[in-house]
């Protein structure tokens, strides 16, 4: 049994193409059923996010399975196959295992180390399990992918550094102010970045929010959003000492906060540190404020540099992650191979036994004067012969499970002895489990 992957991602297709092929999550049952209805496809999972659409499946016929899934993707979404085909990639066996492990560990994402993809795959897996389009192999495979992703996240620093300006601001604040619980944030002016950063600070436990703006009504509106306090712009310097973090983003063409103002503020705060983030262009806060003891000033450019450095660092951590993934692939592949051996041996044995019993019955039935222990002896004879014949192949098959030829042997046995029908019965039993 083989695992195959077919799909496209932000690396191979633009967003226009990705949009056309996306599967909507509230209508996932139909495509899942059609997928597993394709000839040769036994189990299937569909993963559809804004950055990738991928189908994971199990099949015995790799080439045929992949080809059929590619056509399925085009036909289901009523796109011309020729338009879709150049953007699709496919993987099988070890390559497929590696790809899914990498995707789940966020190594294939736009921002390496991002946390969303794992949740998205878990959700897709949930649907497949609910509609029973996934079975023993994909279930085990996905569970393994989740645990590999967890290993990568805990054993490397791939996800630990801030890669957005807002997050970088929060991380910095923690390094300056320590625990952010009960700290106060002041927003000077307004703006998306300001509000986003403020939200992050609130998430980390900051309690107080003050908002000030040249237009008092705007300040009031924004303050309401954060259940905070609106401050008149004229009173900015009277209230500034109450803030631990100041986010500034006014549209003013000149400096608003200068070093003398901050020196007063710092004295009033008894030198408790105060963290200024200047998002405005042109700048709101004089650079000399950074020289004031007790005040720390960062601009958006400074934060961007931090983000770039962190992204580069993630590149290094990604190498460690690939290492971990290589280790895990070997283990999983071994399990997958061994999955085949036992049912094959069982199927072979039962096929032989069937033939044996049929022949014994025929012989016994057609024997006019049967000696008293004849039947028993015939049973013994045929069973012994069968066991001896099966002994060597059974051992070889079990031993091959440690190496790589097991697929070859299992496949050959199944074909030569026409074990397929018996095997599919076994799988139905396993799927029901």
């Amino acid at each position: 049994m083989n695992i195959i992957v077919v799909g496209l991602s932000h690396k191979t297709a633009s967003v226009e193409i990705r949009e056309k092929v996306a599967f909507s999550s509230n209508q996932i049952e139909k495509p899942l059923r059609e997928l597993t209805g394709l000839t040769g496809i036994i189990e299937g999972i569909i993963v559809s996010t804004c950055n990738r659409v991928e189908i994971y499946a199990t099949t015995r016929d790799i080439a045929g399975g992949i080809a059929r899934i590619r056509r399925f993707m085009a036909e289901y979404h009523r796109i011309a196959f020729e338009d879709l085909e150049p953007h699709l990639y496919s993987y099988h066996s070890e390559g497929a295992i590696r790809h899914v492990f990498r995707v789940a560990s966020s190594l294939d994402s736009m921002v390496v180390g991002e946390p969303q993809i794992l949740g998205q795959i878990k959700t897709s897996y949930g649907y497949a399990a609910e509609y029973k389009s996934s079975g023993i192999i994909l279930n085990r495979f996905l569970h393994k992918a989740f645990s590999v992703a967890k290993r990568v996240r805990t054993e490397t620093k791939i996800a630990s550094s801030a890669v957005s300006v807002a997050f970088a601001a929060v991380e910095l604040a923690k390094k300056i102010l320590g625990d952010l619980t009960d700290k106060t944030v002041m927003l000077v002016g307004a703006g998306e970045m300001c509000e986003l950063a403020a939200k992050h600070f609130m998430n980390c436990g900051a309690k107080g929010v003050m908002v000030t703006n040249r237009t008092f009504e705007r300040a009031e509106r924004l303050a309401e959003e954060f259940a905070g306090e609106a401050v008149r712009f004229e009173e900015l310097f009277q209230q500034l000492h109450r803030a631990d973090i100041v986010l500034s983003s006014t549209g003013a063409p000149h400096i608003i906060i200068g070093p003398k103002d901050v020196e007063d503020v710092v004295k009033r705060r008894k030198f408790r540190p105060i963290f200024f983030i200047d998002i405005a262009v042109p700048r709101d806060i004089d650079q000399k404020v950074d020289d004031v003891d007790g005040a720390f000033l960062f601009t958006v450019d400074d934060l961007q540099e931090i983000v770039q450095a962190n992204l580069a660092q993630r590149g290094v951590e990604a190498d460690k992650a690939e290492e971990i993934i290589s280790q895990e692939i070997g283990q999983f592949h071994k399990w997958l191979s061994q999955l085949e051996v036992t049912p094959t041996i069982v199927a072979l044995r039962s096929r032989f036994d069937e033939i044996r019993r049929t022949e014994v019955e025929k012989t016994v039935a057609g024997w006019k004067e049967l000696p008293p222990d004849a039947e028993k002896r015939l049973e013994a004879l045929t069973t012994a012969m069968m066991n001896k014949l099966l002994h060597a192949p059974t051992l070889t098959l079990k031993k091959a499970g440690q190496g790589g030829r097991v697929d070859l042997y299992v496949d050959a046995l199944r074909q030569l002895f026409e074990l397929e029908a018996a095997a599919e019965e076994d799988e139905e039993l396993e799927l029901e489990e």
Partner: protein
Amino acid sequence: MTHLFFSLTLTLYVVATVAYLSCLWRTSPALTQWAFRLLGAGCVTHILSTIHLASKLKHLPLTTMQESLSFFSLAIVACYLIFERKYKVTTLGSFVTPVALLMFVISSALHSEARQLPPILQSNWFWFHALLAFASYAAFTVAAGVAVVYLIQRYFLKVKHLGALFQKLPSLETLDAISYRCLTFGFPLLTVAIISGSIWSEKALGSYWTWDPKQTWSMIIWLIYAALLHGRITTGWRGKRAAILSIIGFIVLLITFFTMKHSIAW
């Protein structure tokens, strides 16, 4: 027997110091744990070594430079272990353990002649005074280590160079909190140490204050840390100037410890 405890202590301190220094480069929870354990084990063997020496001498080993230096390093290690337990700041250890190790190594290089303890020193007030003094010194040493780390972090923040070391070292606020705790722990101890020292001086020499160099300089040290504490509580002396003053206080303390002797000849 002393030699066994001594070698054990030295080995454990060396390995622990190396472990703590490695924590600056590699992040590993196992390494952090082991550094702490090794240092703790070293502290235990150091205590045993000291007890053993005390039982041989029939008094606390605090009279010669060698003994004092060894005790000083023990106090630093013990004090640091308590702070690490409380604040979980392993990287601080990278700055404190080398100091303790250096003192221990120097102490082992010095000679200590066996001699009779002069009657002046055979006073309980002396032992009390000395013990408290060392405890306060240890706290001020840790405070100085914290101050150094604080200045490093502050430097990184000002030049906006926020690399791996910056991420590993604690936040400014944590460092500040530890520094304050060191002060509130060490300063009262120093005060009582000076007072008990005066009482001993009275009993041994007939006068509470003789203006001998060590006593005088102890007063100066006391004033420095009093200013630090006072500044912190009233006008909020934190951050850069507090850190620098902490370091100055520690340097004065070290110089006094090594060069000043009580003018009582023994």
